[in-house]
């Protein structure tokens, strides 16, 4: 099962905006509006921050936004803050020959 492709790292200064990309195929991101994003701090469990492409769970900061175009999903963090320093993973539903979900490779976001 091929993972979705994310950049290994993205960095920005406090207050800036950054975007993390997630590239899939016409069998996953391109086929469904079922893309999620997770934030994971070292040694902690992942936390859902975006689901259904662009919806935020209750309690998640409005600084996190996301979108999708064709086979590519994007997560934008606006007004970068020190606590945003973490790993970020996308995930997508996919036309299943095996398991119907696939994660991205993960992106380390560094707040400089």
């Amino acid at each position, binding site marked *: *099962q091929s993972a979705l492709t994310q950049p290994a790292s993205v960095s920005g200064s406090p207050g800036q905006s950054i975007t993390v990309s997630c590239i899939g195929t016409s069998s996953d991101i391109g086929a469904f509006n079922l*893309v999620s994003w997770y934030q994971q701090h070292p040694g902690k469990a*992942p936390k*859902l921050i975006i*689901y259904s492409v662009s919806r935020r769970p209750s309690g998640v900061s409005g600084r996190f936004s996301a979108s999708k175009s064709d086979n590519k999903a994007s997560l934008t963090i606006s007004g970068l803050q020190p606590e945003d320093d973490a790993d970020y993973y996308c995930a997508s539903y996919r036309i299943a020959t*095996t*398991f119907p979900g696939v*994660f991205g490779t993960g992106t380390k976001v560094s707040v400089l």
Partner: protein
Amino acid sequence: EVKLVESGGASVKPGGSLRLSCIASGFNFSVVWMTWVRQSPGKGLEWVGRIKSRSDGAATDYSPPAKGRFFISRDDSNTTVHLNMLNLRIEDTGTYFCARVHFGGWSGYNEVALDVWGEGTTVTVSS
């Protein structure tokens, strides 16, 4: 408080078996779908498998590395989901998380939106 707590992680030899458990609290466990996700040391997230609710047949699906060796079951009376792992390999080493599948009401279960996670339990497979 909505909570998931995993247990059962241990060090085992290749070829060994292990049973992980995840106890849920704070929500109606019997109606939810549950998932196991693992993370090898320093690596990314990987789906292990998912079990639907009993009303949805308690159907299970597994990722290729888990298929045929790992088995997920649920005990709704004890709000627990289990992951039975057989014939363990060195590459099964990692932290295993259980997570709840988000239910979106009219839109149903969103299998890739895991809205509650446990802290994880560590499995080490080594000779």
